[in-house]
């Protein structure tokens, strides 16, 4: 028990370091760039911004006449209070409130597709490893590897073109229809699911192959170990050996990979959201890039980083349950 607590605290310590590194990068990137960041921003927005917006911007970036260390300190303080500054594109709305309304949609879309693709990929990986050399094993890996070679967002474009534009099976964008009222009612939930289906499907198809291949490779190694032969010798049923004996052990490295791949998959999800005009973080990112809304961009970087770190910690806790070795 003590060891598990130790392990979790150690991981938590690492995430704090990572969060601090992200915060620091976020602070120094504008200041390390050639030229004066304030001058760059103000030159770009001359005439477009009201004086009060300019002042808000100055404060957001801490671009005051304070020495650098003082600026850094007040920046950290305001970040810890959850103050991400004020958006330029949506002036005078604070970045925090813009991001929080979009955040749930991303969690909904990316979270569900990630979980589905991870579970489905892992299951398929164990099955084709068990029947290696079979029909499924010779078709699935190469075809999914080929699909995985496409950029996420490009496949989303094609899917939107075929199933949304040509066949009109799915809506062309947004998170729910204009005819439903957001809330906990059946028409809204159905509409939200209908709108999420196609983006989710494209993300699942692109990322499925990776989980499947890594699970397959680890599973085949596991199937070669002595305790599996012993289980066969005991006469246990194939299904029991496959799922309870082999897959349970083989899934561990895949779990660790899950945490690492999270940032990568999320990046793909952000681009997919843009194609489907899905009102999540990715869509905000595009708006921020178009309007050169630096506070919003940096706020998105911070929230996405924190979300990934939190998810990694949850994965650590799960590993603790699945892998007894971390508990001893």
């Amino acid at each position, binding site marked *: 028990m003590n060891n598990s607590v130790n392990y979790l605290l150690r991981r938590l310590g*690492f995430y704090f*370091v*990572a969060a601090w*590194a*992200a915060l620091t*990068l976020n602070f120094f*990137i*504008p200041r390390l*760039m050639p030229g004066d960041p304030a001058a760059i921003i103000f030159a770009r927005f001359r005439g477009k911004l009201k004086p009060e917006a300019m002042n808000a911007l100055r404060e957001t970036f801490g671009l005051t006449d304070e020495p650098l260390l003082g600026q850094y300190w007040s920046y950290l303080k305001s970040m810890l209070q959850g103050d991400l500054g004020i958006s330029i594109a949506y002036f005078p709305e604070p970045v925090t409130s813009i991001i929080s309304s979009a955040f749930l949609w991303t969690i909904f879309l990316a979270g569900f597709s990630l979980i589905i693709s991870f579970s489905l990929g892992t299951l398929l990986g164990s099955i084709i490893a068990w029947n*290696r*050399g079979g029909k499924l*094993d*010779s078709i699935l*890996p*190469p075809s999914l590897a*080929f699909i995985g*070679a*496409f*950029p996420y*967002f*490009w*496949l989303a*474009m*094609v899917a*939107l*073109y075929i199933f949304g*534009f*040509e066949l009109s099976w799915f809506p*062309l964008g947004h998170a729910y229809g204009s005819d439903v009222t957001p809330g906990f009612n059946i028409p809204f939930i159905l509409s939200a699911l209908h709108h999420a289906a196609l983006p989710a499907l494209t993300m699942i198809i692109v990322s499925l192959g990776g989980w499947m291949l890594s699970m397959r490779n680890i599973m*085949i*190694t596991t*199937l*070669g170990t002595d305790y*599996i*032969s012993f289980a066969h010798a005991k006469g246990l049923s194939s299904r029991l050996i496959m799922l309870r004996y082999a897959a349970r052990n083989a899934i561990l490295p895949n779990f660790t990979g899950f*945490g*690492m791949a*999270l*940032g*990568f998959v*999320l*990046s793909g999800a*952000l*681009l997919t959201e*843009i*194609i489907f005009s899905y009102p999540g973080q990715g869509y905000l*990112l*595009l708006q921020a*890039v*178009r309007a*050169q809304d*630096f506070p919003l*961009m*940096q706020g*998105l*970087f911070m929230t*996405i*980083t924190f979300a990934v*770190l939190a998810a*990694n910690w949850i994965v650590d806790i799960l590993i603790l349950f699945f892998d007894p070795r971390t508990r001893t």
Partner: protein
Amino acid sequence: MDYIHNSIFTRWITGIIQNRKAVTGVGIIFLFIVLAIFGPFITQDPTAFLSTPLSPPSWEHWLGTNGQGQDVLAQTISGARQTLMVGFTTGIMVVLIGALIGGISGYYGGRIDNLLSLLINVFLVMPGLPLMVILASWLPPGPGTLTGVLVLTGWAWNARVIRSQMMTFRSRDFVSAAIVSGERNIRIIVIEIMPRMLSLLASSFIGASIYAIGAQVGLEFLGLGDVSTITWGTNLYWASNDMALLTGSWWTFVPTGLSIAIVSFALTLINFGIDEVTNPRLISERVWRENIPRDKAVNGITPVVKDHE
């Protein structure tokens, strides 16, 4: 020493020449590089306004025209130049940085390793795209910015792989022997160990190039590249800006996307090939497969990893 190196290299090179996957992959990549270099001299001017915008494929324009009335075929071919250039440059730099940091971390161990692997893990866990977006939006748009941003966000994965490989080499006898005989650490790393990691470095380079091509296209698609140049990423950026989807002009985004996928897939094939030729586990598997009839290969004597042919 030289004798061993030579025999390994000859074996690998003949192996790769005989490997179907690697040869297919290399062929495709070679074709794309030749097209990227010489193609633009043959095709129509990719920047000129040639015909009605968004006209479908025809005899004059094999792949139609885009929203600016430019020839899509010419754009796809000349777009390969910068995209492949940035992709492969990033690949090389990522491997160099990965080998440097991962190699030092794995070789020296101890406190240096603790510090460097902390750095590697921090960069691994940070989500790449938002960080790239911030960096690219502050810097002037262009291939230099793209390369720098991709290297900064992409080096950590390779460093991690190279570090763990280095750690296994560090404990081998030949390294201990070199240390005892008084060779300098730098010499041991560069002359003794790195050549033995060549297949890992090669596949790291290919993996990093795949990542760089994909991420670069994504960034340019967001509008963070130089939108006045012609690359695969800006092609897709303009396709989406010119409402290609809502007007049903599939020819503006399908050729570019397919090219990206074919290049990535070809690189993956080369990686499979390198793995099959240089991975001892897969070599022994091939020996197994050649000597044991398929129907006899049941649990117990089935090779550890089986490829999917």
